[in-house]
C-alpha cells in the first residue's frame, strides 16, 4: 500500500479526532457529575447590583440548605459542593456565569435567579446543554421548559382563592395597578378572567415605569373611580412609594384595601409597618406561618444571618428546593447522577416544606403549593387569615385556553 501525502493526512486527522476528542463518541462521561465523593451545584444569585438585596437572601437560604444537608452526611455519603457566582443583576452576565457553571465546572444543577429577565437569559444555556435550573420565584407562568424546576407560585396558585375572597369581603370593582413589564400584565390577565367569572368589573388599569415613585396621578384616578379593591402588582422600590403615598392621600385600608401579589416582609420592613397595615397579600408562604418546619427554618436563618433578618415567599422556595434536589439525587445510583435523571427523579417528589407538604408536578415541573391570604399588621409581620383547603396545582398556561404544559412539552400552542 502506497502512502501518499493526502491519505496520510486523512488518516492522521481521523486518528487525532478519535483520540483527542473522545466526547464525539462517548456521549456522557457518567461518573463525572459525582466524582470524588462530591456533587457540584451552581449557586447563581446576584450579590451586587439593583436586585442584590433580595437575591442575597435567596443566596443565604440556598447555602443554609446545602450546609444542613452536608451536616447530616450529604447525599448517600457524597457532599454537595456549592460553586458560587455573582451575576451582578445583569441578564447577560447571568448567561455567561450559567455557561461557566454548566460547561466549565460541570455542575449537575444550578439554583438561581430572581427576575424573569435573568431566567429567560439563562434558559438557552440549560436547554442546549440539557442541564437543570432551579428557579424559586413566583412568576407570570406561560413557560414550559424541560430544563427548569419552578418552585415559586404561578398566577393561578396566587389568585384562584384570593380574587373570590376579595370580592366577597370588599366588593367587585377592582382597580389594577402594576409596574410596566410582563409579570404584572400576565397576572392582570388572570385577574380579569377571574373577575369576569365572578361578575366583577375592572374600573381602571394603570402601569407605571419600573422604579417609579410618584403615584399622585394614579391615586387621583383611584379617588375618581372609587374601586372596592386596588389590585397591585407593582414591584421593587415602587411598592414603598405607593403604600406611603396611599396613606398620606387619606385612603383607608378598611374600605379600599390594596391586594398585592408582590408585597412581602422585605417591602413592609422598608416602608414601615404602619403603612402596610390592613393591606392584603396572597402567597404560599409567610414568615409567621405556624409549622414545626417553619419554626426550624426561621430559627436557623436568624441564627446564621442575624436576629433581625426576615424570611419571605421567595427565600422559602430557595431553601426547600435544595432539599427536593437532595431527595431526587438520593434515589439515583452515583453513576446515574445526571441533570436529566435528576429531573425524572424529582417528578412527583414530595417534601414537608415550611409552608406545608409541597410536591413537584409530574407534567409541568412546577410545584404544588399551599396558597395563603394574609393581612399585614403594624408590627411589620403578616397575619394569615385563610389557607387554601387543599394543595393547589400549578397551571402555567391557566389564562390561555387550549394550551397546557405537559410532560412532552407545550400542547395547543
Amino acid at each position, binding site marked *: 500500500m502506497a502512502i501518499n501525502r493526502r491519505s496520510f493526512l486523512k488518516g492522521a486527522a481521523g486518528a487525532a479526532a478519535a483520540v483527542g476528542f473522545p466526547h464525539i463518541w462517548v456521549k456522557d462521561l457518567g461518573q463525572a457529575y459525582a466524582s470524588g465523593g462530591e456533587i457540584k451545584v451552581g449557586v447563581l444569585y446576584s450579590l451586587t447590583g*439593583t436586585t*442584590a*438585596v433580595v437575591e*442575597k437572601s435567596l443566596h443565604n437560604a440556598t447555602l443554609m440548605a446545602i450546609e444542613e444537608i452536608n451536616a447530616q452526611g450529604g447525599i448517600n455519603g457524597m457532599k454537595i459542593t456549592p460553586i458560587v457566582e455573582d451575576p451582578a443583576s445583569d441578564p447577560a452576565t447571568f448567561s455567561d456565569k450559567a455557561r461557566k457553571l454548566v460547561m466549565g465546572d460541570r455542575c449537575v444543577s444550578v439554583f438561581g435567579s430572581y427576575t424573569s429577565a435573568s431566567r429567560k437569559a439563562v434558559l438557552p444555556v440549560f436547554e442546549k446543554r440539557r442541564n437543570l435550573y432551579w428557579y424559586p420565584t413566583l412568576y407570570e407562568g406561560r413557560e414550559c421548559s424541560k430544563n427548569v424546576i419552578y418552585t415559586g407560585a404561578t398566577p393561578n396558585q396566587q389568585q384562584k382563592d384570593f380574587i373570590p375572597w376579595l370580592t366577597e369581603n370588599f366588593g367587585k370593582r377592582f382597580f389594577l395597578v402594576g409596574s*410596566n413589564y410582563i409579570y404584572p400584565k400576565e397576572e392582570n390577565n388572570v385577574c380579569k378572567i377571574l373577575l369576569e367569572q365572578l361578575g366583577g368589573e375592572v374600573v381602571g388599569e*394603570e*402601569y*407605571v*415605569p419600573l*422604579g*417609579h*415613585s*410618584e403615584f*399622585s*396621578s*394614579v391615586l*387621583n*384616578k383611584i*379617588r*375618581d373611580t372609587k374601586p372596592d379593591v386596588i389590585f397591585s402588582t407593582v414591584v421593587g*422600590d415602587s411598592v*414603598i*412609594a405607593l403604600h*406611603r*403615598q396611599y*396613606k*398620606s*392621600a*387619606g385612603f383607608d385600608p378598611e374600605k379600599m384595601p390594596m391586594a398585592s401579589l408582590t408585597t412581602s416582609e*422585605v*417591602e413592609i*420592613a*422598608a*416602608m*414601615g409597618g404602619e403603612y402596610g397595615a390592613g393591606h392584603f397579600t396572597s402567597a404560599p408562604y409567610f414568615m409567621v406561618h405556624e409549622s414545626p418546619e417553619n419554626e426550624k427554618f426561621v430559627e436557623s436563618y436568624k441564627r446564621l444571618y442575624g436576629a433581625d433578618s426576615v424570611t419571605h415567599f421567595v427565600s422559602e422556595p430557595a431553601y426547600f428546593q435544595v432539599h427536593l434536589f437532595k431527595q431526587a439525587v438520593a434515589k439515583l445510583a452515583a453513576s446515574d447522577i445526571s441533570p436529566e435523571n435528576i429531573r425524572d427523579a424529582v417528578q412527583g417528589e414530595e417534601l414537608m416544606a415550611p409552608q406545608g407538604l409541597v410536591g413537584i408536578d409530574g407534567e409541568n415541573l412546577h410545584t404544588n403549593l399551599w396558597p395563603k391570604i394574609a393581612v399585614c399588621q403594624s408590627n411589620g409581620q403578616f397575619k394569615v387569615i385563610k389557607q387554601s383547603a387543599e394543595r393547589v396545582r400549578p397551571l402555567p398556561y391557566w389564562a390561555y385556553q387550549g394550551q397546557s404544559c405537559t410532560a412532552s412539552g407545550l400542547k395547543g400552542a
Partner: protein
Amino acid sequence: MEVFISQIFTGLSIASILLLVALGLAIIYGSMGVINLAHGEFVMLGAYATWFLQQYAGIGLIPSLVLVFLMVGSIGWVIERGIVRHLYHRPLDTILATWGIGIMLQQLVRLTAGAELRYVELPESLSRSVDLLGINFSVYRLFILLVTGLLILLTWLLLMRTEYGTKLRAITQNREMAECSGIDSQRIFGLTFAFGAGLAGVAGSLVAPIKSVSPDMGTHYVVDAFMVVVLGGVGSVAGTAAASGILGEVTAGMAYLLNDTLAKVIVFIAVVMLIRFRPQGLFSQLVRK
C-alpha cells in the same frame, strides 16, 4: 371640578419636589458653571442623614432638616475644596469628576449603611390628610410645598440682599473683574457649592418619607433636576421655579389623561424639542462671557 383642583394640586406637589431637587443644582450650575453629576447623590446623602439621625439620635424629621443641611453642605464644601476647585478651567472634566464622586458616594453608603431600603418616619401631625372645599389634601405634600416656598424665598434673599450674594453675582458676571475688585472668588465658590449641596440634602430628607431610601435613589433625581435647569435657563432662580411648575403640571396632567409611562415620554420629547429651538432655556439671564 374637584378632580381638576386635586389634579392641579398634584401638579404643584410634583413641581415642588422637582424644584426642591433642582434648586441646589441651578445655583451650582448657574453661578459656577459646574455640571455637578453628583447632585443626585447629595439628595441621597440627605435622605440617609435623616434616616441616621432618626434611627440613632432619635431626632425627628423637622428638627433634622437644619442638621442635614449643615451635614451635606459640609460634605459639599469638602468636595469643592478637594476636587472641584482644581477643575474650574476645565469644565468638561468636572462632569467626569463629579460622576466619579457620585459613584464613590453611592458605594460608600452601600458599604456603611447597607444596600437594603431604609425607612424614614413621618411625624404624626404630618401623616394625616385634610379636607378643604370637599377635596382631600395630604398634609405632608402641603408641608413640602410650604418648605419649598420658604427655601426659594431664602435663596432669593441670600442672592439679592446679602453681601455674599452680591459678590457671587459679580463673580458670575465676570470673574476676573470681580477678583480685581478684591473679591475672594475661591471662598465664595466653596460656600456656593456647599449651599447647593445643602439644599439637595434638605430635598433628600423631605422626599425620604414618601419615596424609598436606597443608595441608588439619586440617579432618578439628577435627571429630573437637569431637565428643570435646562428648561428654566441657566442662572435664574425664578426661571427654575417656573420650569418646575410647568414640568410638574404637564407631567401630572398627562399622567391623569393618559398614564405615567406615556407622560414621561411626552415630557422628555417636549423638552428636547424646546431646547432644539431655544437652547438657552425659557427664562435665561444675559451674562457676559
